[in-house]
């Protein structure tokens, strides 16, 4: 084996898994002393162009409490056609179809290179994808226009047989019937009334479908299994209708008097959307896509009143317990999110407004269902338009990069237990022998539901070593974990992806170096960050920071090399060296710092942080600053640009210089979802603050003495610089006091 780095990378590429520790401490006690828990980042649907799905179903362990999938780690008795489950050691008969199995004739799932394998299930009716647009009409005219265009455009991107529905809302909520000719028809609901799912379905006539449907059903049950609603129709049938309908969509006609916010019934609209799908297509992949241009101002889920003079809650209000609608609204959206998750649907939130839109309260809708959350200033920006478009991008197979209704089932070998998961998922509350009593993240279960996911959706999964110190693991013993992800592919097939990994156990006393070397500091940083962010949702910010600091200091104490009370002697090995720096940036990041961010922004950042894969997460923690220059004083470049040199042929090289970062930026922009806010600024420009808030504040008004190095302007912040941080860390790490 080459270096751990290569090993880690190879594993990530093959299995979409990165562990904090790639050699596992063999006892519970030692594991807890490692500070960073044994955990991994799992990207369940990591794109594997080289991995075509097999056309059959997995073979399961017959023990009812296990049901692990046959995998390369299993011992196979080819003669007896038996295999032993590597998790519970149950011996299982191969199914008849495997009759021809032999050492040379192995099914794919037994081959080592198929530690990750995808099965395609043929059973069951295939249900089309469903896209339910929930559109706010309390927008400015041009915003609405832009949104309408985006939506119209999206129709062409949807798979033709996908079902699409439209709900618009303002003061009222309208559910549009798409099947009717001539006259456009919609069902209207009061925006202030909380309706139960049953009521909604009754009122939409879903509980008792229209007569023709009843007749049709017995006759052609196969052909029209999903024709039971007029509100969701195949795109190919109604795209013209819907395009017209969207085109005629008017701004909410109810008058908004001076000093008032428009009445926006987001809570009811979402409730109806959820109820509609719940009643018609439970457990079928569906996206509820909420487009909103402002905070909900009435009805259940209202976030702020309609009086403009009372601003929407700030962090300050929340701390002072002054956010009077927050708890109730949050509860409303949580209830919706849980229902949605239970139905296997997901909710996207596209919020474009200059002010907050209530993402804080609504975040659970996206967080718990695996939906997207996009925040922008206006629908009439490329940020929104391109981000929205990117949702419908396709992979190398021409399939949408989205999957639905996944359940993630994790099996561990008996030395391990599952402590929890952090990511866009909800617990399915499946208890079992491999579920730990100690929870990290969403725990107490071995299965989670991820209603919406894409190839980059990544969960942090935390384990606990339960092996007792006095029960040593045999030399060369390996611990194994199996991730079974059952999901609906965008092609509407049901698929199962199984990833089975194994890592060596090591005795901490004797093999600490091994363990140390196998530390994945990037994964560890992200996993710790997720824990921190997860805590920050429920705990006070400073507490979280203190906890993070303590963890960092303990880690340094455990793995650093130093002389007691001698900070200068402090050293970290290569595998740990970047970790403190990540923590430094994490402490300053918007994921943990709410200063300078609105509650909505915090929710937005945290939402994304909790689902990105490792690379993106790291970048989000520690931004990358690229520099471009001639070999001259850079501060003049702005002046040159202003002077327009770049447009002169003789300064073409200057033009190229200016263009280079733009091009790179575009590349980055194209690679990310959602599309990042792209700011083109210059020294002293008003937008430069966005940059300055991200870079290491090595010069601030606190250390002006350093002025004169002429390396840049000071950054006005109370934050310490990385240097100061590191100094303190060293001091604390070597201190015997703690």
């Amino acid at each position, binding site marked *: 084996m080459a270096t751990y780095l290569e090993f880690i990378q190879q594993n990530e590429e093959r299995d979409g898994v990165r562990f904090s520790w790639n050699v596992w401490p063999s006892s519970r006690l030692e594991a807890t002393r490692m500070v960073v828990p044994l955990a991994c980042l799992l990207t369940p649907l990591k794109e594997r162009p080289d991995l075509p799905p097999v056309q059959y179903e997995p073979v399961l362990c017959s023990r009812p409490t296990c049901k692990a999938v046959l995998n390369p780690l299993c011992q196979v008795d080819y003669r007896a056609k038996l295999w032993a489950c590597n998790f519970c050691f149950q011996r299982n008969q191969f199914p008849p179809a495997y009759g021809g199995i032999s050492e040379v004739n192995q099914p794919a799932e037994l081959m080592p290179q198929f530690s990750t394998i995808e099965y395609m299930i043929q059973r069951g009716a295939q249900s089309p994808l469903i896209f339910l647009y929930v559109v706010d009409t309390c927008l400015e005219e041009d915003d609405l226009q832009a949104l309408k265009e985006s939506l119209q455009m999206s129709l062409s991107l949807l798979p033709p047989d996908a079902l699409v529905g439209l709900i618009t809302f303002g003061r009222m909520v*309208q559910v549009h019937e798409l099947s*009717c000719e001539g*006259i456009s028809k919609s069902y209207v609901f009061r925006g202030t009334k909380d309706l139960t799912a049953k009521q909604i379905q009754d009122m939409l006539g879903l509980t008792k479908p229209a007569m023709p449907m009843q007749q049709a059903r017995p006759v052609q049950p196969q052909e029209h299994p999903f024709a039971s609603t007029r509100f969701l129709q195949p795109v190919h049938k109604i795209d013209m209708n819907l395009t017209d309908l969207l085109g*005629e969509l008017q701004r909410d006609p109810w008058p908004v008097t001076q000093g008032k916010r428009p009445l926006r019934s987001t809570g009811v609209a979402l409730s109806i959307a959820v109820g509609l799908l719940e009643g018609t297509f439970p457990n079928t992949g569906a996206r509820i896509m909420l487009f909103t241009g402002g905070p909900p101002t009435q009805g259940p889920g209202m976030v702020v009143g309609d009086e403009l003079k009372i601003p929407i809650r700030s962090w300050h209000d929340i701390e002072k317990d002054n956010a009077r609608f927050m708890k109730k609204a949050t509860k409303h959206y949580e209830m919706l999110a849980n229902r949605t998750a239970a139905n296997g649907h997901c909710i996207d939130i596209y919020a474009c407004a200059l002010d907050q839109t209530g993402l804080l309260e609504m975040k659970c809708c996206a967080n718990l269902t695996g939906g997207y959350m996009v925040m922008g200033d206006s629908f009439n920006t490329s940020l929104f338009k391109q981000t929205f478009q990117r949702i419908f991008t396709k992979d190398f197979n021409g399939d949408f990069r989205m999957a639905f209704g996944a359940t993630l089932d994790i099996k561990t070998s008996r030395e391990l237990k599952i402590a929890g998961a952090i990511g866009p998922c909800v617990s399915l509350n499946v208890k079992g022998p491999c579920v730990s009593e100690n929870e990290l993240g969403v725990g107490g279960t071995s299965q989670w539901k991820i209603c919406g996911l894409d190839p980059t959706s990544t969960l942090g999964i935390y384990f606990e070593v339960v092996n007792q110190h006095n029960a040593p693991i045999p030399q060369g013993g390996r611990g194994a974990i199996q991730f079974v992800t059952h999901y609906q592919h965008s092609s509407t097939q049901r698929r199962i992806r199984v990833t089975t990994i194994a890592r060596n156990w090591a005795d901490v006393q004797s093999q600490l170096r091994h363990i140390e070397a196998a530390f994945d500091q990037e994964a560890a940083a992200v996993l710790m960050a997720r824990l921190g962010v997860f805590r920050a949702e429920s705990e006070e910010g400073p507490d979280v920071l203190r906890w993070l600091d303590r963890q960092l200091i303990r880690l340094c104490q455990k793995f650093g090399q130093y002389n007691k009370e001698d900070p200068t002697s402090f050293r970290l090995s290569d595998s740990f060296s970047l970790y403190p720096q990540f923590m430094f940036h994490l402490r300053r990041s918007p994921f943990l710092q709410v200063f300078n961010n609105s509650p909505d922004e915090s929710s937005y950042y945290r939402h994304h942080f909790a689902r990105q894969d490792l690379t993106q997460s790291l970048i989000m923690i520690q931004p990358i600053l690229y520099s471009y220059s001639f070999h001259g004083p850079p501060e003049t470049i702005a002046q040159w640009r202003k002077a327009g040199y770049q447009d002169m042929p003789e300064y073409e090289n200057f033009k190229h210089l200016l263009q280079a970062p733009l091009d790179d930026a575009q590349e980055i922009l194209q690679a990310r979802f959602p599309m990042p806010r792209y700011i083109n600024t210059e020294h002293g420009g008003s937008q430069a603050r966005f940059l300055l808030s991200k870079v290491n504040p090595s010069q601030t008004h606190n250390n002006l003495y350093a002025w004169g190095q002429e390396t840049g302007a000071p950054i006005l912040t109370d934050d310490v610089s990385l240097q100061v941080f590191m100094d303190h860390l060293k001091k604390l790490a070597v201190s015997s006091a703690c």
Partner: protein
Amino acid sequence: MNVNQSVPPVPSFGQPQPVYPGYHQSSYGGQSGSTAPTIPYGAYNGPVPGYQQTPPQGMSRAPPSSGAPPASTAQAPCGQAAYGQFGQGDVQNGPSSTVQMQRLPGSQPFGSPLAPVGNQPAVLQPYGPPLTSAQVTAQLSGMQISGAVAPAPPSSGLGYGPPTSLASASGSFPNSGLYGSYPQGQAPPLSQAQGHPGIQTSQRSAPSQASGFTPPASGGPRLPSMTGPLLPGQSFGGPSVSQPNHVSSPPPQTLPPGTQMTGPLGPLPPMHSPQQPGYQPQQNGSFGPARGPQPNYGSPYPAAPTFGSQSGPQPLPPKRLDPDAIPSPIQVIEDDRNNRGTEPFVTGVRGQVPPLVTTNFLVKDQGNASPRYIRCTSYNIPCTSDMAKQAQVPLAAVIKPLASLPPEEASPYVVDHGESGPLRCNRCKAYMCPFMQFIEGGRRFQCCFCSCINDVPPQYFQHLDHTGKRVDAYDRPELSLGSYEFLATVDYCKNNKFPSPPAFIFMIDVSYNAIRTGLVRLLCEELKSLLDFLPREGGAEESAIRVGFVTYNKVLHFYNVKSSLAQPQMMVVSDVADMFVPLLDGFLVNINESRAVITSLLDQIPEMFADTRETETVFVPVIQAGMEALKAAECAGKLFLFHTSLPIAEAPGKLKNRDDRKLINTDKEKTLFQPQTGAYQTLAKECVAQGCCVDLFLFPNQYVDVATLSVVPQLTGGSVYKYACFQVENDQERFLSDLRRDVQKVVGFDAVMRVRTSTGIRAVDFFGAFYMSNTTDVELAGLDGDKTVTVEFKHDDRLNEESGALLQCALLYTSCAGQRRLRIHNLALNCCTQLADLYRNCETDTLINYMAKFAYRGVLNSPVKAVRDTLITQCAQILACYRKNCASPSSAGQLILPECMKLLPVYLNCVLKSDVLQPGAEITTDDRAYVRQLVTSMDVAETNVFFYPRLLPLTKSPIESTTEPPAVRASEERLSNGDMYLLENGLNLFLWVGASVQQGVVQSLFSVSSFSQITSGLSVLPVLDNPLSKKVRGLIDSLRAQRSRYMKLIVVKQEDKLEMLFKHFLVEDKSLSGGASYVDFLCHMHKEIRQLLS
């Protein structure tokens, strides 16, 4: 109905009758009688001298039987001079009276009292004494003797000389000859046996008999006799008519042949015979046709001489009561037409009785409101409440504030008093009117209602002339006219904001039934063109009214028809439990701007629901939605609801079928008229607050609970139309015609009406389609020119003969262009200290209007029987009071009726036997509720014809005659089987074809060769080019034009099964449901009166 309120007033009438325990007359405005007549008669005088003056009598007796005498005594010889209005030398009246005198041959008779009245050719015959008193007197000697009989009062208006009576009575009757032969003995039996069999309990009859008959025996035997007639009556009922008042389709049942009539009657005689041998001929009475004197009766009734003869009390051979001898509505109407139809009615004089509603006349407003706006039960009010109580004549005004006027009469002037608003009395808030007294040189004015002295604002100041009148009095409508309008200022507007133009919302039931019958398609098609005829103000080019559309079954569909849309948008609201309006902009639109979208919508609605299977409907949420829409648009307006079925879908106001015929004639019958739930009243209240008027078009094919559904229209000033078993082919014309009229008619919205009175009387009770949240303000979400409010007054102090009594009706409303206005009607009435004056200035038609409304409201709270008894008692008391206080002494056997009220018995009988108060077996609960509701807001003309239908012979008058043929009395015996008749009551229209009508006539009217080929139940006459066809069709058209609702024609052939339906409207005959014949009822009434008098 206010039962049990007070003690029976008049001691002279003596004993409260045990029969009507619950009922007391006091609930009607009591009036004391007085005998000073004069003025009102003036009007009659000229034209129909025959009725009024009986100079000899008048002269001879101070209180002559007629009201006229006192005046007439002095002046009788010179005719009109006697009458107040003429006598006063009013310029306008002067000439007219002379004209009359010249014109009318009748004037001659006045000179010589003895001479029979000449101007009633058919009627008058030389009856002994020329009785002209206003009373109808009938002597029923038989009654005196046997105690049972009162011969029917003579028909014509002439007073029947009480004492000498018979002769005089006959003189007054149109058909005096018949009258003379009228068997007195006969009547009483009828009244007892058949008159009110269904209604009256034996208890009632018992006492009455006791008085009438020989005391000892009568009580006992009576009972059986009563029950006897009942049975037959019921048996008739069974097969009879289905929907008498508004028949939409012929009743399926077959009628028993004429024999049944005799059948039931048969048993009667024997029963009576033991007591009253002479009664058998009752049958005749019930049949209507007058027969010769019947020997049987003769002997028992010694006192029944022919009326013609002067010897009243003398026993004569009894004869059957001659229908021709009793007061005839036809004659009265005809006379009034002849006498008063030619001259304009000038309103300058206080307390004038206007011509009858059936008379065509013009009105000149000279300071009092036209009778088209206000009619009173009496134009001379007793000065004290004691008198009023004594007389029991209700004091009521029937007000139609927005009545439409004939083109010759100017609509009220609009007065603008500028920013300060209309000038009003500071204390009682009465509006400036001609009766206000300016004093101190014009600097102040004294309120004519409360006597408060107010300053005249500087901008309104004007000098007075030598008579104390402002010199600008004739330039200002409010100082010279009875009716005018003020422009209201913003203070008179809701929320202190001038109103927006009102809106019409069409709300169409699209459930299965509505689609199946073709209603929706028909309606949508019609609306496309009808919307161009929305009411508009004066000369406005287009209507300011905006329109909106809603369809519904158990959910509601709103439509966005904004002009900018290419297609209408439908918005479904299923949350019927918590109704709201889903859109604002685009729901109420200007018809011209959104025409294309609306047309497209109306085209699509029938298609969209063509395949509907939804049978359930909601109702309350629909109205709620309309009301909310108006609220959201901040305007008043009207909802047009087109509804088919009982709203059984789960929603507020959900109803269940509670129709239960077993409740009829029980104490629980009233529940059939009450709404099922309170939700409807609550909703109506909200509607009124928003100025949301609801017009309901019902198309039921089974029970829909009209009693409940009509609550909202009723309380919001709306109308209800009902088309049972609607089918496009048969009912389209009627529906469309009603719809067109309803949509086009001018409406006032968000109205409040307040009736102020001068000190001494007070408006205490109100009847009509409106809502009241306090005791004084009549709130009308909408008010159109057909809607009438009847107001009852009571004394709260003594009135002054000199100053009279004043009424001011102020209506604040929003015009159909959205202008806020006040319409003021003023009326001055006389006050009297003599009961005779009261009786001389009454209007029976108005009285009936009031009494019908009173009774129809009463059925909500009291058993129907009690309501009927109440009416009878009150009527008896009114007449008894007259008899006692105003008529000249005469034998008790005489029935003496006040001239002005001589039709009271016949009309009251019609009310009593109307479907609401005495339902036949085929009358549905819905029909009763419907009629009850309709009558509530009828005006006097409508109630008049509704209760006493017009029956017009078609071939009697010359074919070239363009005028309506003279009507005949509504009795089967008036029908000639060689003729055809049109019968109409404002709701129904029948063409009755006699069995032996000439073949040529049949051919030219029906285009078939014989009677037998005429399709029974035909509703359209073929359009044929011959004079008869043109004339009949023209006549039908003209009849329809006179009524506010389209009358569907039903052709009925004699002896056909449909004829039963028709006969129901022959109100002078005994009805199958047990209603008494006119003759019987009159006898009964006489008996009641005698009882009161004894």
